[in-house]
């Protein structure tokens, strides 16, 4: 169970994610690939699926989210549910 405040951003290392319950309490902002600013000024991203799932707490209430890790292409990724309580 995670306790967060309204406006908090939650970033998880995951290849995917979604809100199972409480979509007005917490929203999935997206699943992103990391970028590294290289020593020569380019932004480099690895080849592979995205690795960061970003959520935002919108208003007080409860929510349940699911994080997906592992290989998106093989059909048996690891899934984990997390309950979230958002307070003002």
């Amino acid at each position: 169970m995670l306790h967060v405040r309204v406006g908090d951003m939650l970033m998880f290392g995951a290849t995917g994610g979604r809100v199972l319950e409480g979509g007005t309490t917490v929203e999935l902002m997206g699943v992103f690939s990391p970028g590294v600013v290289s020593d020569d000024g380019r932004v480099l991203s690895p080849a592979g699926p995205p690795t960061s799932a970003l959520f935002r707490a919108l208003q007080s209430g409860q929510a349940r989210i699911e994080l997906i890790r592992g290989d998106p292409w093989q059909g048996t990724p690891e899934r984990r549910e997390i309950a979230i309580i958002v307070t003002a």
Partner: protein
Amino acid sequence: MCDSDQKLRQALTKIAEVARAAVDGGPYTDEDDSKPHGETTRGSHTHAHAGGKNAHCSIKQLPDRLVEKAARTARSINPVNGVGFGPISAVARGLVLDPAAISVLVSKYWGPQQRQLTVSFLDGGPSDLRRRIIQHMNAWNQTAGISFVETRGVGKVRISRNQAGYWSYLGTDILHIPNNRPTLNLQGFTMNTSESEFHRVVRHEAGHTLGFPHEHMREELVARIDPEKAYDFFLRTQGWSRQMVDQQVLTPLSQDSIMGTPSDEDSIMCYQLPGSITKSGEPIRGGIDINATDYAFAGRIYPKVSAERAPSIQVEMGTADEWSPSEDVEVDEEPVQ
């Protein structure tokens, strides 16, 4: 040898010439480029050995004592790495390559010299696991002149196992990643991971480290996917936005493609995609190990000149040009970035 093989070989010849021109310090001229590339093997590049009896012999040899040094210099200069990664797929389609197409082919390419890439493990791990991972990465070394070797220091390849997903930066990009960050991630790999996953995942990620992007992004394979089904599938299974699905699955790599062979859904660099997202209902199989085409391609891109073969090549190419050591030129070596 098929047409695309020959064009690839020509591209490699060109790459080797650019690198050599930099080492020699001589002017690199491109006068052949106005001609169809089918002619380049006749060896009329002006900086090549004058009067070479055949094209493959027109390579100027350094005295033995300087060969190693030149290789180091070439690596530090590596002039072919400054440009965007490009359409090796053009080779596959049998198009005549223009000079840009050849140079862009190699932007993340390690160069034709044989080399060893050091590997370190950011989260440690047991020695048998580290050895097993490196052993699978070195599967490419069966045909390619690049090998991986563990170091106790900071490796050029830095492997983590505690971040999300399986991924690697592409080719020489790994040299630009901060030293404390991984360049390759194998989420959750342990000695209990099945051998087939070592084949499928570790070898795939090592392929990225060699500079090979995803094969499933080839035009011909992307064309088999039904976009609406893909958006729906990945939203459902992964929560991915349409933009992410576009980026991961639906954008064909006509500009920055991969293996210079006809698209190959059995390549180790091809992901498996389910039949539920293709137009025909047939899945894209995806590679489960380095296949014969992958091995052949890696061997052409990274030629492996074994110690046993070297003397015969030397004979074919003519003996090295000798001069006295007092005439050797000092070249300032720059550290590899």
